[in-house]
C-alpha cells in the first residue's frame, strides 16, 4: 500500500514537468509578450532591446522555462508582470476562498445526491425515478453561470435575501454554494443511480436476501458498499473540477478565488502569474485524483489486495 502511494507520488514529478512545460511553452507562444505593455513611445530601440534582455526574450523559450522551473523548485514562482506581487503569495491568499466554496458544494452535493440516487435506483422505472432523473438531467444540462445569474436575479435583486456578490459573512456563501452544490448534486445523483442500478442486479444481493437480510440492510450494507467507487470518482472529479474550473462561478459572484485570479492573469497576458496559477491548480487537481484513487482501496478490498501485492492481475489463458 505504502509502496503504491510512493509510486503514485513519484509519478507526480514527470507529470508536473510535462504539464508545466506544456503550459509554459503554450503561454509563451501566445501573441504579444510581457513587455508590450511597458513599451512607451519615448523608448529607443536600445531601451526596448535592454528590456527584452532583462526578460530573457532574446533567449530560446526552453532557457526561460528551465529558469522558471529552477525558481519553482526553490519555492519562487516569480512576480506578477502586471502588479509586481509575488505569484506564490497571490495564489495562497486567494486559495482559501476557493477551497471553502468547493468543500461546501461537495458536502452539499454528497449529502443530497447519494440519497436521491439510491431513491431513484430502487424505484427504477417508476414515476419517482423519472422525476428525479429529469431533475438531475436538467441540472447537468444547465450552464453553471446561467444558474448563478438566475439565482442572483431571484434572491439578490427580486427578494433581496442574499448579497449579490463578494466574500463577507456567511450569507455571501449561500448563492455560490447553492449554484455549485446543485450542479454537484445533479451529477453525483445521476452517477449514484446508475452505479446502484448496476449493483442491484448483482448475484450477491440475492444471496443476502436468501439469508433473510432485511431490505434496508441489503441496500445499505450490501449494495451501497459496492456502488461506492463510481460515486467516489464523481465526487472527486466534482471537487477537482470546482477547484480548477471555479472561474465561472467566482466571476458571477465576484468571489475572490483562484479561478478568477487565473482568468484575470490569462486575459492580461500576465505569463508568470497565469503559469503559476495553472501549474498550481494542476498540482491540486492531480493530488485530488490521487486521494480518490487511494480512497478506492479503502472502500474496495480487491483493489487493496492489488496494491498490497504491488501489481495488477492479468488474464491468464488456461
Amino acid at each position, binding site marked *: 500500500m505504502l509502496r503504491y502511494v510512493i509510486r503514485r507520488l513519484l509519478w507526480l514529478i514527470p507529470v508536473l514537468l510535462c504539464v508545466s512545460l506544456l503550459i509554459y511553452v503554450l503561454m509563451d507562444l501566445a501573441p504579444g509578450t510581457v513587455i508590450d505593455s511597458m513599451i512607451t513611445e519615448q523608448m529607443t530601440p536600445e531601451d526596448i532591446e535592454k528590456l527584452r534582455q532583462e526578460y530573457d526574450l532574446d533567449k530560446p523559450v526552453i532557457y526561460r522555462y528551465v529558469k522558471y522551473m529552477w525558481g519553482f523548485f526553490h519555492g519562487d514562482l516569480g512576480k506578477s508582470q502586471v502588479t509586481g506581487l509575488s505569484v506564490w503569495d497571490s495564489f495562497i491568499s486567494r486559495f482559501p476562498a476557493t477551497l471553502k466554496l468547493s468543500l461546501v458544494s461537495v458536502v452539499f452535493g454528497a449529502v443530497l445526491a447519494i440519497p436521491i440516487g439510491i431513491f431513484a435506483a430502487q424505484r427504477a422505472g417508476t414515476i419517482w425515478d423519472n422525476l428525479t432523473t429529469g431533475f438531475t438531467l436538467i441540472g447537468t444540462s444547465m450552464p453553471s453561470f446561467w444558474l448563478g445569474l438566475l439565482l442572483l436575479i431571484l434572491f439578490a435583486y427580486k427578494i433581496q435575501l442574499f448579497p449579490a456578490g463578494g466574500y463577507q459573512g456567511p450569507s455571501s456563501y449561500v448563492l455560490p454554494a447553492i449554484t455549485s452544490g446543485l450542479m454537484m448534486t445533479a451529477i453525483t445523483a445521476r452517477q449514484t443511480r446508475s452505479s446502484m442500478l448496476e449493483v442491484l442486479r448483482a448475484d450477491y444481493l440475492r444471496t443476502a436476501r436468501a439469508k433473510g437480510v432485511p431490505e434496508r440492510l441489503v441496500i445499505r450494507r450490501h449494495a451501497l458498499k459496492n456502488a461506492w467507487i463510481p460515486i467516489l470518482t464523481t465526487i472527486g472529479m466534482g471537487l477537482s473540477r470546482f477547484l480548477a474550473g471555479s472561474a465561472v462561478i467566482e466571476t458571477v459572484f465576484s468571489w475572490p478565488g483562484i479561478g478568477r485570479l487565473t482568468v484575470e492573469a490569462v486575459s492580461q497576458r500576465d505569463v508568470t502569474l497565469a503559469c503559476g496559477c495553472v501549474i498550481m491548480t494542476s498540482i491540486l487537481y492531480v493530488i485530488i485524483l490521487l486521494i480518490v484513487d487511494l480512497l478506492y482501496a479503502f472502500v474496495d478490498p480487491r483493489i487493496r489486495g492489488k496494491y498490497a*501485492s*504491488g*501489481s*495488477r*492481475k*492479468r488474464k*491468464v*489463458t*488456461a
Partner: protein
Amino acid sequence: MAKALFQVRNLKKYFKTSRGVVHAVDDISFDIEEGKTLGIVGESGCGKSTTGRCLIRLIEPTSGQVFYRDQDICQLSRAEMKKLRKEMQIIFQDPYASLNPRKSVLQIIAEPLLYNKIMPGADKFAIEKRVLELMDKVGLAERLINTYPHELDGGRRQRIGIARALAMEPKFIVCDEPVSALDVSIQAQILNLLKELQRELSLTYVFITHDLSVVNHFSDDIIVMYLGQIVEKAPADELFENPLHPYTQALLSAILVPAVGANRDRIKLRGELTSPIDPPPVCRFAKRCNYYNQDCAAGVPPLLEITPGHFVACHRIKPGSNTLVEAN
C-alpha cells in the same frame, strides 16, 4: 506406423505477469496421428487450451517446436503461416463469445472464404451457395442464413462455429471444449456431428475438455495434463482401464456415473490446484498426492514409457511395472 501429422517437441509457453512467470505450458512433447483424435484433459488452469492455441500458432510459444508435416510452423513467416492456416482451424468453447454479434450467419461463414480467397473469382452467388452447402453439412436450416448469433440457441451457434472452421477445408481442427457450454441433449448432437465430419472429411482432431466421459467417448489417444505438464499419455482404452498416475486415478474416480449405486468408492484428493506461477522444480502434483514420499522431491519426474504406448510422469512408477511402486 504412419508418420505423425503433428510432432510437438519441448513446447513451452510462459506468461509474464507482475506476480511472477506463469508456466502455462511447461515443456511438453507429443505426436498427433493423422486422422485420429487426441484428447487433452485436465482441470482449469492446466494449460490445455494454451497448448491447443500454440499448435495452430494463435499464441506464439515461448520455446519449443511444433512440426506440422515435418515443417516447424513456429519458424514460418506471417505469409507462409497464412497459407497453412487454411489447413488448421479451431472451434471454441463459448458459442456466445466466439461469434461476432454484429454479423449474420451468412457473413460469419463467408468471412473465411473471402479473406483467404479460397474461391478465387467467385461471385456472391457462388459464395452464398458454398455457405448454404456448409450450413447443410452442419445441420443448419437454410432459413437461418440472415439471423444473428444472439437470436439462436447455443447448439446452433456452435454449428455456425463448426461451419466457419469447415469453410477453410481444414485437415486439422482444435476443438477447445466444444460442448461444455451446451445442454446434454444438444451436446450429444454436436459430438455426433463432429464424429460424422471426421469420418467424411478424414479430419484430425485435438479434443480439449475437462469432461472425462466425453473425452473417453471421443478420443483415440488421451493426454492428461496437470499444471502445464503431461502427467500421463495413453490410448483411450488403456488409460481408462489401467490409469497409473495418482492424479489420473483420482480424476477417473471423480467421474459421477449416472447409474444407481455406481458412485460409492472414490479416491479423495487434498486441497486444490496450486498456482502455476514460478513452480518449484519438483513434481507439481506432490502436494496433493496420496502417495507422496521423499522420492517425490527429486526434480520434475520425466514422462517415461511404462508399457508400450503408455507414458507416465511419476517418480514412483518405473518402466515395466504396472502399478505404483510399493503403494501405501
